[in-house]
């Protein structure tokens, strides 16, 4: 009898431990985002234009070698890349404007960025502009588009030889 009471008490304690545990392992639900907005993700991976031009150096002159070898041409090229200038405008309002530096120790890698925006659902006018060459004033790439966003829709803007919306 005494033993039974003991085991019953233990069963109760196990229940007191595990029942709340089971509940908090999935409830209460978490409200992350409202239903009447959509998400616009802008993800750009793009190498800026190289700053400056290659200079040629002609090597191996006048050592009595055959002409073909004599005319080996070596090019010395700068490696530094332009940073990207990127701007996002929705319905005439600038949501994002930033300079994205090239990666790498010598700024010779690609530029890479990611940003996400919540935008109310419905029709919008979207503009994306980018400059990837410091030698050029103004924007080298542009996108102007009317879009219609659905509730909880995820729209991705990325770049591959031009802006693309998905």
């Amino acid at each position, binding site marked *: 009898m005494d033993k039974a009471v*003991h085991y019953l*008490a*233990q*069963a*109760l*304690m*196990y*229940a007191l*431990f*595990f*029942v709340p*545990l*089971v509940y*908090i*392992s*999935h*409830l209460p*639900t*978490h*409200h*992350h*985002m*409202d*239903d009447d*907005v*959509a*998400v616009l*993700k802008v*993800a750009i*991976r793009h190498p800026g234009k190289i700053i400056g031009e290659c200079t040629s150096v002609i090597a191996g002159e006048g050592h009595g070698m055959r002409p073909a070898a004599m005319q080996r041409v070596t090019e010395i090229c700068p490696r530094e890349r332009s940073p990207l200038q990127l701007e996002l405008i929705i319905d005439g309002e600038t949501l994002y404007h930033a300079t994205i530096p090239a*990666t790498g120790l010598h700024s010779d*890698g690609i530029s*890479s*960025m*990611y940003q*996400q925006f919540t935008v109310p659902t419905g029709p919008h006018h979207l503009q994306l502009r980018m400059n990837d060459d410091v030698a050029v004033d103004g924007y080298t790439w542009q996108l102007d588009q009317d879009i219609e966003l659905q509730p*909880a*829709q*995820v729209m*991705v803007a*990325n770049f591959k030889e031009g802006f693309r919306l*998905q």
Partner: protein
Amino acid sequence: MKVLIRRGFNALDSLFSKAFTPAWNPMYQLGAMSFFYFWIVAATGVYLFIFFETSISGAHASMEYISVEQWYLAGIMRSFHRYASAAMGICVTLHLLREYARDRYSGVRWFSWVSGIPLLWLLFASAIGGYWLVWDVQAQYIAITTAQWFDWLPIMVDPMASNFLNEATLSDRFFSLLVFLHIGIPLSLLLGMFIHIKRISGARTNPAKGLAAGTLLAMLAVSLWQPALSQAPANLDVAVTEIGLDWIFLNPYPLISSWGPGQTWALLVGLSCFLTILPWLPSRREQQTPVAVVDPENCNGCGWCLADCPYEAVTMKEHDYKKGHQQSVVDPNLCISCGICAGACPSSSPFRHVDELTTGISIPGFHIKELLSLTENKLSELGTDEPRIMVYGCDHGSVVDSMASNSVASISMPCTALVPPAFIDYVLRKELAEGVMISGCCEGDCHYRLGNEWMDQRFSKERMPILRTRVPRDKVRIRWLGEQGTKQLGLEVKEFQAHLLENVQADVQLDLVKIAEASNG
């Protein structure tokens, strides 16, 4: 705050001890329970891995197979895997709070405390990785929010978020990395767990069998009642709006989106740093007293102190000057000044014919000769109307100071296992008192881990030095009632006196009968 937490634990301890008995009380073995849950998670994880499809397109479907088609085995394994992780999270958190509230984190314990902190990160990372692999909407939320969190760090060259843009650009590459991490991180956790207990002798890594069995049964019941399931499959083309969330392991996530990734990093890293330096922050807890000192003259090299030291502070070496003999050495960086070694040393016997009691090993803060003079002086002041009781207690358990009276003497020391069994023999044989009461922390919850266990074993003659057979057992009581049992101990001392008085009267009566018989005959 610490006092409040301690009171909470006192209440929980008593409640659990009633239902489970002290030997099975999970509150006394939270570290061991954490180990136990880890093994459950590891074993079930291996089984789940057989059926898990390690590709982003197949993961969710394979989890559905596990939970739906093979619910009777893989499904139950899955529930065990999830709920044991959650239970481990809770046990580890309670373990941390408890060590804090009971002041078991500073001094030489700093090593266990500090090495515990990375375990928290590894445990959370393991669990979050597990939820990620299911690739349901909760996993989608984890992916997006983790990316947001890590992309805040300036070390990220390529944004992590670009791995989870939409369904069209999704690839398996990152997912394979996750699978790898979900095996690698728990393995590092296990390694960390072993480092964590490295400086503790005979660390308790297995819970009591009855508790383990009960836990498995309870988990089976829970797994049948509420099997662990996935939520709807992830779809990166639709943003996450409302999801079920594991609040045990994912509780920092809502902070990342509502409060910001930088702030969340600051909070969690700040909290970890704070916990790391906590053992060295000034506080009102007692300061560590000088560590144990070996007296080679009185050490015969028996090694009993080594066997009893709970913190691996004692080693043996060749004797300083007795050739072919050994002696003990104390590492001051490991010694916690509990004095348990002094209670273990055969030289700590008050029967020795020496002018001043010395011994092989003792703590300067409470030397064995001090224990002897206190015992003799306090007992000599008692009246003889009632049976006299010597109450030995410790500074962390039942408060014995208040129990002193005309017939009761009490001495409090760092750990009651400091009292050599020979002292009890001495007190009773020399008729300094009629009874000896040993008290301390709750059974199974010694402040110095093993004190009450060693004491019980010395009394039951399972451990050296033993309480000799000639000591009448009805004149000695051991009551491990803890701080919360102080009142109870007071009552039991009174009851002990009444019991001894009865015995005395019975003896007197027996004597009278004998005298009468003798005169008749």
